[in-house]
């Protein structure tokens, strides 16, 4: 039996639709969370069966969405491996599913799932249990996934904005909390400003190349790969951008010799575009000197959202940054490497030094995450295979160890106790030995002490710096482990070595326990037996 409508959908899902299926599923689940919740509200109240099924329905549905999407992603990964070209393009090559996308998408989904697990109890305590919250979590994840899979400037920008807008709202979700209001206001102002800067950079790139597809852009920007790309393009039909068509139809050799020297030295406009894009993305990843929003937003946002912002938004922005830098700006790496190195060292320095004096744990972790950005950027300075593996591994480790650290703070949040100040941690060991032990493991991992995931991430970065003959940067980077350990151990000292005050015993919900379990498993497993994780990270940048 053949119904035209169904056939059309099936055809879509086997063609272009297949490439964005994980995102579509997430969106559908997000819509479901938004729409289904309301009519059930009243019937749930009185019936125990409905209560069991629909208690925390939003969270359960959202979690199911991430699992579904993750499963689809897994199958997609198989399809990528089987494909002839090693990647699956869709929508006139405005998205691709290559090895880069599944790695990052998995991280986003994992982060989203962790945040959902951590949110349930937190929102109960805040009395803000609402479907919109979970829907926004899922939509943010959709945006992030497009940031990783998009190879078209428009797709990337829209993905980024979808994520950013969700985060602005989530940050201010506790509307009666003045700190939450303030954080979201600061976030939206600086975030929108940085998006504007980024968009300006994008417009210049478009102007330089006459196309929004970054593979075509990089063909224009990088003359050496231009020829190969031109030949490849000429074999396809329906190439986007009349300019490219014009190039390829008759005169691509002419296109290639047009101002090759200009291209080689990164023309002024390209330099301007690069600087603007870099600044915009530095804002998003919170690299010094564009980091001012981070501590405020981290402190003011509800802690699960803080986790999400620090873990997922940073990873997604790095995915975007890597995609652009590895294609469009690849040839001019020697030119901009100094800029990146400067920003990296500044981030390391300022992040580590400012963290030393913080008394609020969330703020402290905000500064420490700025320092982590410094390490990841150093990977871009090194720019070799080890470095890329290192960046991917570092991000992976960062997601789980940071989520774990925040998760412990979330566990501390009880009725009547905020639990964000260092003093609130006092005697955590007596109150809840398990949380204290977990906190210790996450702190060791964040500091980069073996055998934890954090150490392996740093290992790759340091090795790549040595391989590419940057000994001074390497020494800088390793020595910053020492102050980092000092401030991470301030947290440990409060949790382990200080006498407990009046504070109650924190009670861990089962959802929180699951989240913590996953986070600690990855933080330890990726340090004790890093082999599978190393392969995973290696795979992210192509076989």
């Amino acid at each position, binding site marked *: 039996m053949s119904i035209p409508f169904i056939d059309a959908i099936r055809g879509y899902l086997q063609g272009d639709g297949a490439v964005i299926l994980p995102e579509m599923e997430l969106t559908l689940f997000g819509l479901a969370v938004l729409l289904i919740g309301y009519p059930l509200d009243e019937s749930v109240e009185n019936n125990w069966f409905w209560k069991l099924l629909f208690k925390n329905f939003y969270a359960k549905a959202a979690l199911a969405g991430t699992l579904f999407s993750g499963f689809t992603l897994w199958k997609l990964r198989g399809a990528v491996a089987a494909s002839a070209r090693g990647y699956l393009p869709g929508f006139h090559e405005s998205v691709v599913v290559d090895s880069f996308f599944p790695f990052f998408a998995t991280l986003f989904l994992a982060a989203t799932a962790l945040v959902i697990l951590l949110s349930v109890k937190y929102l109960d305590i805040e009395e803000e249990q609402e479907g919109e919250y979970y829907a926004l979590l899922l939509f943010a994840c959709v945006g992030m996934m497009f940031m990783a899979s998009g190879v078209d400037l428009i797709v990337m920008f*829209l993905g980024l904005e979808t994520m950013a807008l969700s985060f602005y709202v989530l940050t201010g979700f506790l509307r009666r909390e003045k700190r939450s209001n303030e954080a979201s206001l600061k976030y939206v102002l600086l975030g929108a400003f940085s998006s504007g800067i980024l968009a300006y950079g994008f417009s210049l790139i478009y102007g330089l190349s006459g*196309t929004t597809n970054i593979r075509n852009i990089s063909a224009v920007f990088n003359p050496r790969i231009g020829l190969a790309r031109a030949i490849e393009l000429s074999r396809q039909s329906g190439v986007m951008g009349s300019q490219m068509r014009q190039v390829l139809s008759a005169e691509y050799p002419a296109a290639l010799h047009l101002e090759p020297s200009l291209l080689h030295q990164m023309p002024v406009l390209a330099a301007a575009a690069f600087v603007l894009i870099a600044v915009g993305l530095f804002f998003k990843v919170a690299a010094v000197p564009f980091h001012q929003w981070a501590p405020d937003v981290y402190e003011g946002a509800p802690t699960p959202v803080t986790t999400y912002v620090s873990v997922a938004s940073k990873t997604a922005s790095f995915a975007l940054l890597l995609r652009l830098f590895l294609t469009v700006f690849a040839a001019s790496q020697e030119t901009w490497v100094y800029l990146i190195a400067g920003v990296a060292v500044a981030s390391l320095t300022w992040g580590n030094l400012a963290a030393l004096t913080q008394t609020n744990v969330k703020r402290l972790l905000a500064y420490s995450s700025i320092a982590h950005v410094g390490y990841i950027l150093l990977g871009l300075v090194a720019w070799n295979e080890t470095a890329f593996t290192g960046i991917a591994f570092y991000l992976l480790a960062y997601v789980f160890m940071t989520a774990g650290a925040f998760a412990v703070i979330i566990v501390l949040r009880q009725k009547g106790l905020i639990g964000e100040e260092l003093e609130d941690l006092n005697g955590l060991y007596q109150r809840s030995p398990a949380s204290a032990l977990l906190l210790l493991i996450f702190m060791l991992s964040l500091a980069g002490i073996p055998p934890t995931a954090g150490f392996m991430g740093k290992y790759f970065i340091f090795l790549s710096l040595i391989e590419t003959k940057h000994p001074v940067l390497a020494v800088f980077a390793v020595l910053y482990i020492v102050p980092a350990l000092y401030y991470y151990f301030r947290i440990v000292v409060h949790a382990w070595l200080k006498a407990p005050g009046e504070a109650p015993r924190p009670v861990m919900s089962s959802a929180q326990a699951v989240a913590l379990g996953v986070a600690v498993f990855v933080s330890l497993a990726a340090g004790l037996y890093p082999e599978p994780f190393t392969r995973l990270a290696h795979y992210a940048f192509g076989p």
Partner: protein
Amino acid sequence: MLPIGHYLFLSLALFIIGAIGVITRRNVIVVLMSIELILNAVNINLVAFSRLYGDVAGQVFALFIIADAAAEAAVGLGIIIAFFRNRETVLADEMDLLKW
């Protein structure tokens, strides 16, 4: 069509004015307006290049930028209202619970 430089200078001027507005103004609503100016500058660039190359992508991009500007304005103003309800101020300097 005029040389592309004309349009680039115009857009640069708007961009810089917008950036100055974001940095110097304390009234958050005006800051949000300055951001609209920046996005407007982006659009001028995109449309001018689109005309230069006879390529439609620039105009489409500009369309999405406008959509994004609308979305940002809606969310931003919503947040300002929520903030105002709690604090009765729209001045950036009075956001002082968190260290600025």
